[in-house]
């Protein structure tokens, strides 16, 4: 009944789901997650404290990468209507974050000026 997740188990691609790009590779996915977390922690530790607010709005926009999943769910050919509808709402939410996240980050960053010479 219950299939154990194992890389050698032949997993048939879900019909027309369009979701799984390639074979399900559990350990591969976990490896990617671990490495990405390490990179993330190291890169973000070096972000200047000055920029923590823009950092958060930038990562907001980046987490809207959920749009990828939303697209896959909405565009599926034989998906029932309510599945498509859920996906479309998710596209709407993610796009909101992409647009507002990147725009406001740039708007804030433009304000950070060095201006060594203040009128003396």
């Amino acid at each position, binding site marked *: 009944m219950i*299939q154990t*997740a194992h890389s050698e188990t032949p997993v048939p691609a879900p*019909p027309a*789901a*369009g*979701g799984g790009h*390639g074979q399900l*590779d*559990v350990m591969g*996915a976990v490896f*990617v997650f671990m490495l990405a*977390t390490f990179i*993330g*922690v190291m890169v973000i530790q*070096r*972000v*200047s*404290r000055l*920029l*923590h*607010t823009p*950092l*958060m709005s930038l*990562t*907001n926009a*980046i*987490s809207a*990468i*959920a749009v*990828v*999943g939303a*697209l*896959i*769910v909405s*565009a*599926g050919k034989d*998906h029932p209507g*309510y*599945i498509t509808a859920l*996906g*479309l*709402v*998710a*596209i709407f*939410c993610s*796009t*909101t974050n*992409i*647009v507002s996240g990147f*725009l*406001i980050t740039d*708007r804030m*960053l*433009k304000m*950070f*000026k*060095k201006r060594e010479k*203040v*009128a*003396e």
Partner: protein
Amino acid sequence: MSAETLVQLLYLVSTALFILSLKWMSDPETARKGVFSGVAAMTLAVAGTLAGVIATGGTHYWWILGAFAAGAAVGYPLAQVPLTAVPQRTALSHAFGGLAAGLVGTAKYFLYFGQHNEAALSPFIVIALVAEILLGFLTFTGSLLAAGKLQEVKWIPQRPVTYPMQNLSNLALFGLALGLGIALVLHPLAPWAPWAFGGIILLSLAFGVLLIIPIGGADMPTVISILNAYAGLSAVAMGFVLNNKLLITAGALDGSSGLILSVIMCRAMNRSFFNVLFGAFGQAQVKAVGGEEKTYKEDTIESAAQVMEQASLVVIVPGYGMAVAQAQHKVREVYDLLKKRGVTVKFAIHPVAGRMPGHMNVLLAEAEIPYTDLMEMDEINGDLPQADVVLVIGANDVVNPAARTDKTSPIYGMPIIDADKAKTIYAIKRSKAPGFAGIDNELYFLDKTFMLFGDAKSVVGELARKLSGEGGH
């Protein structure tokens, strides 16, 4: 080249650009490049996904275009909010992110359930699905509530809401969700399984509310960071479900960012994650402050201006009160006038000043104060004994010496800005009532402290007028 290879190549470049995007945020000089890189990465991600969808025969393109357009139409005005509203905008967008992840997870489960797709609902996938909807929907309601609190929506209580057995009942509900999750992992295709799935959704929505109601404004920077991490982790879980490495990477970057910010915020308040989420900060403040009656020493703005003119180093400590009063532009006038007279002016920024990480820096940068004069707490504390004047604008807990000395204080152990070590202290305060956390501040009763009561914007504006020579000195 097959469509699949093209998709993976686009994802690969997109991942690299996302990492570079965050790397360039390390310095204000390169940070804008980071935004462009992020936009490029996102464009490639969407292009790659569309390519994959087209290759496998997708439909509904007009609907999808419509959803994109609607999202952009709502997103654009959200990017134009005043900078004082950035914390609630951020919370709102965490809510959108959480909802998107939750909905995709729900759609995927019901799709597989409808197809009776036993292979797709392997235990690993179901665990990832449960994590995705749990984190997604919890982030959705939690962030909405946080946004409401930050926006000071009337029917949302500002003060922490606590009730007896709060943690115990939360824990019981969490156990229930966990039980449903385990049942779902074991029997994802049972006739009752969709009900269990729905139950987890409802419980997650409830958790979001229950986690945020006991949290007060002063804890918001930590909470926003934690919700940021959750939104990222729900994207990671989605990546596991869809076997999509781009989702996993981008989600992990977001998750680690939220994690690091939460750790920094917790450290800045000397509290643990656990304590922030389950500690109910509000309880300690119920104690009547009464007892000994202390009196404030007031001073006129004119004499404050005179003292500052004579100073060689003035350190300004901004807090949430400055943001509320929108006083940052007036602060800039004072900064310019003092600089013109040869006074060195620095800003001392506590990591948790304001309502989100870095809040003060953005407001002061908006007022065109050069970021080279915005100092972190650790950088400036060594200079404070040499400061002739410290000007506290709408900050309270972050300069309260009780954090160093009073073991009974709820903020004991929290690193603070050593404002009390300066030669003279001026503190602008809206009223004589205790601050947000309801804790009395000894700093205000020191011999060398003088209070300037009033709205931060008008007091600082008046200060600028006196400094510019109007009204003489």
